[in-house]
């Protein structure tokens, strides 16, 4: 339910992402649709929530990556204990799991922030008493592209990136390995945009940790063997901007699907449908683990 900001009571709670005041019982921010559960839960726990943003070009594999990351975290199959905050946090991983189990890729994320899925998790490294809250939205690549092309057109993207304590940048490694320049150029734009968010701090390197995830690396096994070398060889522009402007960057390779096949619909012969034949996640948690280690 959308509420006019002028009617919001003085005891309104600011949204973690856009800082818009919301009614105390609001479940979603009236402005950016970010879930308010994290803010209220963190306030109760006395913790500062951390925003970790998964970004990348459209069709780079962000949704599938994020869905698997959440599912693996939820199964306590990594070095982390993770508890979803609110049932809405499970919807993204549920959607990704059910699609891939049926040999379908999930639908593309809608570009409108109001239709994104958000996941809030309470996370702790196993054996540690320190819990922290992470908010991970499934951001559409189109929204990111629109914001980069024309800053402030998609305010949620800008707000999220400013608030992010860590960024996971997904790149289509398969396309890069085939010699396509687009993944490299888009990544360069993204990193330049993040760099520009610093404003007057441009005389310093960007300190936000960035985990560059080379998605679909099952197509290019050399990425698994040496992710940074792969990036230097195939994503030279990204490599260069990371080297000159970013303080804390690490490269990772990941893949989710073990084999992909294709079919065409008789109704749309030109439309090729990708079919994930079987699923074999690899390199999913490592970027997140590294990122968590970098968080203040």
């Amino acid at each position, binding site marked *: 339910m959308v509420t006019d900001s002028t009617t919001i009571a003085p005891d309104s709670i600011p949204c973690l992402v856009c800082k818009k005041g919301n009614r105390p019982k609001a479940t979603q921010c009236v402005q950016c649709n970010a879930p308010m559960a994290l803010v209220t839960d963190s306030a109760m726990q006395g913790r500062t929530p951390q925003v970790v943003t998964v970004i990348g070009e459209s069709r780079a594999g962000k949704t599938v990556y994020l869905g698997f990351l959440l599912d693996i975290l939820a199964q306590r*199959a990594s070095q982390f204990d993770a508890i979803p905050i609110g049932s809405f946090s499970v919807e993204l991983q549920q959607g990704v799991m059910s699609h*891939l*189990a*049926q*040999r379908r890729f999930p639908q593309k994320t809608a570009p409108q922030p109001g239709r994104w899925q958000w996941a809030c998790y309470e996370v702790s490294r196993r054996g540690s008493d320190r819990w922290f809250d992470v908010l991970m939205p499934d951001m559409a690549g189109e929204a990111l592209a629109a914001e980069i092309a024309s800053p402030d057109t998609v305010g949620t993207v800008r707000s999220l990136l400013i608030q992010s304590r860590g960024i996971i940048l997904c790149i289509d490694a398969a396309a890069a390995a085939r010699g396509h320049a687009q993944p490299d150029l888009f990544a360069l734009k993204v990193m330049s945009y993040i760099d520009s968010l610093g404003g007057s701090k441009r*005389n*310093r*390197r960007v300190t936000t940790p960035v985990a560059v995830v080379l998605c679909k690396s*099952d197509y290019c*096994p050399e990425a698994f*063997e*040496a992710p*940074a*070398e792969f*990036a*230097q060889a195939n994503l030279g522009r990204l*490599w260069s901007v*990371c*080297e*000159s402007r*970013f*303080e*804390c*960057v690490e490269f990772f390779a990941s893949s989710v699907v*073990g*084999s*992909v*096949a*294709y*079919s*065409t*619909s*008789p*109704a749309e012969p030109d439309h090729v*449908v990708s*079919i994930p*034949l*079987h*699923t*074999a*996640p*690899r390199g999913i948690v490592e970027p997140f683990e590294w990122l968590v280690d970098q968080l203040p």
Partner: protein
Amino acid sequence: VALRLFWWRTRSGSGGRARHLRPRKASATSYEPAPPEPLADDMIAQCLQTRRFGMVVSNRERWAQRADVDGAIAEASRQLRQRFAAVPEGFATLPESVREIPGSPEVDVDVQAFRLAVHPVTNAEYQFFVDAGGYSELELWPRDLWPQLPGFVDSSGCQAPRHWREGRHDRRRANHPVVGVCYYEAAAYARWAGYRLPTEAEWQMAASWRLRSLAHLPRRFPWGDALDTRRCNVWATGIGDTAPVDAYPDGAAPNGVQQLIGNVWEWTSSDYEVTDDYGSPVVGDMPMKSVRGGAFDTYFPAQAASTFRTGLAALVRANNVGFRCAVDSDFVAEPAAVGESLRERM
């Protein structure tokens, strides 16, 4: 001047390049190459040494003049009976649609009795193939594949499975299934050893144990209908890597064939041919072969089930795909009776 110097230092970092981005060398994890094992000069002795028992049995006529041939064949037959379990005749129901949902078209394929290797081929066994020059024996490979052969190299450029170094396997993994081999390498090994790869119907019959004489209820797993991570190595088992081929003995099929489920996908000799929801063929980037059984990284239990069909491009050399061999039932001197394997298990 001091401010400018400060700005320059903070902007460009030490020496203009950030140390944190220097590519690290490929993981310097320890690798213990298996020591070379000299191969016997005599052909029969070498076949027995390299576990090419099928080659010995099938060359009975060729070596008929030799005095020691009967003893060699008896030994090879004994080894074959021990290493290849009898699979009774039965049938396999293969889904024809990629979705594999109830009501989708499927086809019943009759399977004749045959023998299936109790274990997948190990690194140690495949090492014999490499050492004996298997990659150079062109008659083992399809003629149209010959131009691809120089590309079947390990991480150091030697002709060997993808993840080996200098043509040697890691001796600590001698008893693990060989991985990093494409379909053609698997088929060449089987041919070299005097065996063959199973068809996917044979593989499914062995795993689902769907006999003609029983009710038409296949087992989803060799031990029953529910995934049990104590009996196989899949993603949920939590190992995240291959295990020795004799691990998980409790996951064996009734005739003793082990690790049909999990550890590594297994190449079969069948093409992967399915259709989509509209009946249109599903194709890959290149011709696909059927692989079966799931692997250590198989996430969904249903995808490790005995009836789950999937495919992989025949030239892929993945870290989770291996193979096991099969022979015809009449290959061994005595007929393959299912009771034989079952008796050995009891």
